[in-house]
């Protein structure tokens, strides 16, 4: 039965603004900055305007009244208790809000004066968020105060970031004494509790400065406190980039250090800096709030969100009686949360390392329904667009396939010849991204039986690794997988069923190329073995696991196993790690071992011993092995059959001797021809 698999992998979101949460909070931040930029226009009254006798006037905005009907209007209040400042609404007394009307005068960028407000009232004030202790409109003060609070965050983090880039960059690029000095200073700054440092620095820098200067001074102080963390981050990245060959090349090209730092190294930091910027802005806003709360920050006549929450006006009595004076706090929280969520999403979006591998279950099941529906339709619509899918009948399908790519010498199906076939795959196709993209794999057929070594040869991008990874669902990226049939031990496998996939995976072990990156460096080898055994047998105890792992490790010809089993992976050489890796793969007695370029990172002599060992084990355990490599010479020396792949297609698949001596496909001929054998000489 032909079925189709379109597994949706949760990949890193490619479109940042498609995230609803990011979109909402971005919008909130935009609104805040727009509001703050046009503060005098958006605020109904001047933030300094005191309404006589309206101390702690409660919020009085109404949207409907019998007298004025629908529309924003101000309810009039009357003071009933002058001691506890208790207000009561006056029944039937409303003041209409006028939109785009004249009110208090203000200057536009210091150039011209105007008195147009978005909305204002004539006689009785509209207090949307209530009034403060001097009878000033809190909304107007919040809007105007946001100017300082929001810009202090931006300015402070920009200054601190520049400091961090400069000092961290110097430390990272030059190293040695410079690095030592700068890092010790940073550590000293980090050592002192932030608030004490804040107060200390505030005392040093002009404690009685005029309000205009305090703004700059506070942002300077905040950035001095904020830079060490980012400086360490920048230094770390610089240290690693410095080792890259292109930096060495630039240095050898006599490019001045300053150009290397700013033009060659800094661009690698952009995404990280952007993230760290959006994380640090809320911290700066909070820093300003803390200072102003203590009366050391912004003072009258300037306003900021912090100074609105100054401790002089904020006490338990006033908060319980007039809760609306906490309103600026809500704005601080909102700005902080928006920035944090923005930063979080930016990180997910920009960080290449956050790349979830696991399948989203919901997506898979819905796709499955679709595919079942599609199965009843003509087969052409299935799967990869470029691949016309043939009829259910295998024989007929192969004929059609041959017509399509006759020139590529697709082999006749060999499945029927093997009765003891372990794994049989028909017409595996795979494509990344959108369906219209070039498929990474097309019409891949494979059969393997016990004790057989199948070699898959191809250049990079030929789909040799992708074929096996796609089959086992181990691909990192979103991919559409389609197939005609997959049989494991003569039972059909449906890749949409988790159980089937898990069953297939338990029979197939995969060994990767990079020896040092395959395992957790913090877990010793015996723990790795224990975990592996527990997959099959959860009740296995430590001693038994130890015995079994010793047995397998000595099979891989690792000497002094007893001592070494407690070692960590970094204590082994590349060849040894690869042996341990193979031993781990063998731990659960797989039927098929996939060796994906396992010797590429190794020396030629180690390569030979490991390959010999592997082949030996495969033959004695009558296991099948799939050996993937770019090196046709290596594959030729170990495999029984060779499959040659090019650009996602199977070019040729035949016995090793046939491929090496009488290749049919022109591509195989070029591949063999371009091998430089020992003894060849360049001839001009």
């Amino acid at each position, binding site marked *: 039965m032909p079925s189709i698999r379109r597994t949706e992998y949760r990949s890193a979101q490619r479109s940042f603004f498609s995230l609803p949460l990011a979109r909402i909070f971005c919008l909130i931040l935009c609104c805040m900055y727009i509001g703050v930029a046009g503060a005098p226009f958006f605020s109904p009254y001047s933030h300094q305007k005191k309404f006589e006798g309206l101390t702690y006037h409660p919020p009085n905005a109404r949207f409907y009244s019998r007298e004025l009907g629908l529309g924003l209007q101000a309810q009039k209040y009357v003071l009933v208790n002058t001691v506890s400042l208790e207000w009561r609404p006056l029944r039937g007394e409303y003041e209409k809000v006028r939109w785009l009307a004249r009110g208090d005068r203000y200057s536009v960028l210091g150039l011209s004066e105007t008195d147009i407000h978005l909305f204002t009232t004539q006689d009785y004030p509209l207090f949307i968020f209530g009034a403060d202790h001097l009878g000033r409109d809190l909304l107007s003060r919040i809007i105007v105060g946001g100017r300082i609070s929001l810009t202090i965050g931006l300015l402070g983090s920009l200054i601190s970031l520049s400091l961090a880039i400069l000092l961290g960059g110097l430390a990272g690029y030059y190293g040695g004494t410079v690095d030592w000095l700068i890092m010790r200073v940073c550590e000293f700054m980090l050592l002192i509790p932030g608030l004490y440092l804040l107060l200390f620095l505030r005392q040093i820098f002009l404690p009685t400065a005029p309000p205009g200067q305090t703004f700059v001074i506070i942002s300077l102080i905040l950035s001095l406190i904020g830079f060490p963390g980012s400086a360490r981050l920048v230094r770390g990245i610089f240290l690693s980039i410095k080792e890259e060959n292109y*930096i060495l090349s*630039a240095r050898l090209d*006599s490019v001045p250090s300053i*150009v290397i730092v700013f033009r060659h190294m800094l661009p690698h930091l952009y995404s990280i800096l952007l993230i760290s910027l959006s994380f640090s802005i809320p911290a700066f806003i909070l820093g300003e709030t803390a200072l102003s709360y203590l009366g050391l920050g912004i003072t009258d006549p300037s306003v900021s969100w912090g100074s609105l929450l100054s401790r002089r006006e904020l006490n338990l009595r006033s908060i319980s009686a007039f809760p609306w004076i906490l309103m600026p706090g809500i704005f601080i929280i909102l700005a902080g949360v928006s920035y944090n969520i923005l930063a979080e999403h930016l990180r997910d979006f920009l960080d290449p390392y956050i790349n979830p591998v696991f399948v989203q279950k919901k997506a898979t099941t819905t796709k499955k329904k679709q595919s079942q529906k599609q199965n009843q339709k003509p087969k052409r619509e299935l799967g990869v667009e470029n691949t016309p899918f043939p009829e259910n009948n295998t024989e007929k399908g192969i004929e059609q396939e041959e017509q399509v790519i006759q020139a590529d010498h697709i082999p006749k199906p060999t499945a029927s010849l093997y009765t003891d076939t372990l794994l049989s795959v028909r017409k595996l196709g795979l494509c990344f991204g959108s369906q219209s993209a070039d498929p990474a794999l097309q019409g891949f057929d494979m059969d393997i039986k016990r004790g057989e070594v199948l070699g898959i040869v191809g*250049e990079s991008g030929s789909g040799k690794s992708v074929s096996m990874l796609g089959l086992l669902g181990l691909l990192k990226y979103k991919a559409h997988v389609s197939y005609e049939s997959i049989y494991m031990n003569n039972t059909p496998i449906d890749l949409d069923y988790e159980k089937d996939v898990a069953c297939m995976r338990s029979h197939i072990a995969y060994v990767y190329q990079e020896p040092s990156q395959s395992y957790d460096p913090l877990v010793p080898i015996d723990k790795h073995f224990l975990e592996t055994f527990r997959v099959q047998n959860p009740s296995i105890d430590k001693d038994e696991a130890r015995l079994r792992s010793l047995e397998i490790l000595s099979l891989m010809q690792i000497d002094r196993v007893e001592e070494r089993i407690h070692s960590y992976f970094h204590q082994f050489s590349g060849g040894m790690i690869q042996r341990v890796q193979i031993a781990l793969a063998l731990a659960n007695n797989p039927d098929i071992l996939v060796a994906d370029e396992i010797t590429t990172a190794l*020396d030629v002599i180690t390569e030979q011993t490991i390959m010999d060992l592997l082949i030996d084990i495969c033959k004695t355990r009558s296991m099948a092995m799939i050996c993937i490599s770019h090196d*046709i010479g*290596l594959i030729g020396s170990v495999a029984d059959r060779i499959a040659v792949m090019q650009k996602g297609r199977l070019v040729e698949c035949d016995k090793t001797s046939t491929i090496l001596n009488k290749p049919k496909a022109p591509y195989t001929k070029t591949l063999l021809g*371009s091998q430089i*054998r020992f003894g060849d000489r360049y001839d001009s």
Partner: protein
Amino acid sequence: MTHSRSLYSTSSHSKLFGGNSDSSPILQLNKISKQYQVKGGTFATDRQNVVHALTAISFDLHRGETLGVVGESGSGKSTLMRIIVKAERPTDGNLSYYPTKNTPLHDMCKRKLLPLSINDLSTKETKLYYDQVKIVFQDPTRSLNPRLTVSYILLQSLLYSPSFNIHCDARSYKAKRALALERIHHTLAHLGIDKAMLQRYPTEFSGGQRQRLAIARALIHRPHVLICDEVSSSLDVTTRANMVTLLKELQEAFGFSMLFISHDISLVAYISDTIIVLKNGITVEHAPYQTILHNPKSEYTRMLIARAQTSK
């Protein structure tokens, strides 16, 4: 300056090596050793551990010659390369350079005794030396900055080069830029890369193209010595053969001496005139290619050859 000649560098010997090398050496390594101090962790028992990356390496690189260096990982190939380009100082030994006549370096050092000892060069002379000895690295993805366009990388590399600035002789920036572009286009034509592709970023090129760009980056300086560190090992098999042939063709066109470093003995034997086999930082064998091909003396070389023959 006293200068003891290395074991293998009698001039009569080098003539025997054949190829297109002429007899005068350009680079001379005399008993170069490099040790690294490996510091143990805070709780490690042995605090100081010395790793001998290179031990008493001596050889001559002759003008126009291709010298092949074979070694497995950890044999000290890369350290050797870094010492030659002065990215690292040797712990012991002397590295001498014979500047070609009528080059800025030669003019500057007229008063000095030849050959120049690399470690005694002044900052200015070092920069001129950098222009004459260039490296092509193993991994093409890491040898070009992915965040800069290729044209920016190549232009900047040339415009900051002191030799090129002397060559331009205080012309205006515009004229210098035009000259640099002309030279870049000329070099790229040799490498078969279309100059229209220059505005792209390195990631938009294939591995083979990127490696050719890395070679171009070295060749625009018209170096006298080109060090190729495993240039072909990260490439596909079909591209690999082309790359090696290309290097030989370029050598004929530009006339540089080449130090070809690789782990693959068949590849080294394919293009080198003289071959050095390194093992754990020690010269195991140093012989003309004919000897390596037909009559290798050391056991280790024979082992490498045997492996190369079984797999192919």
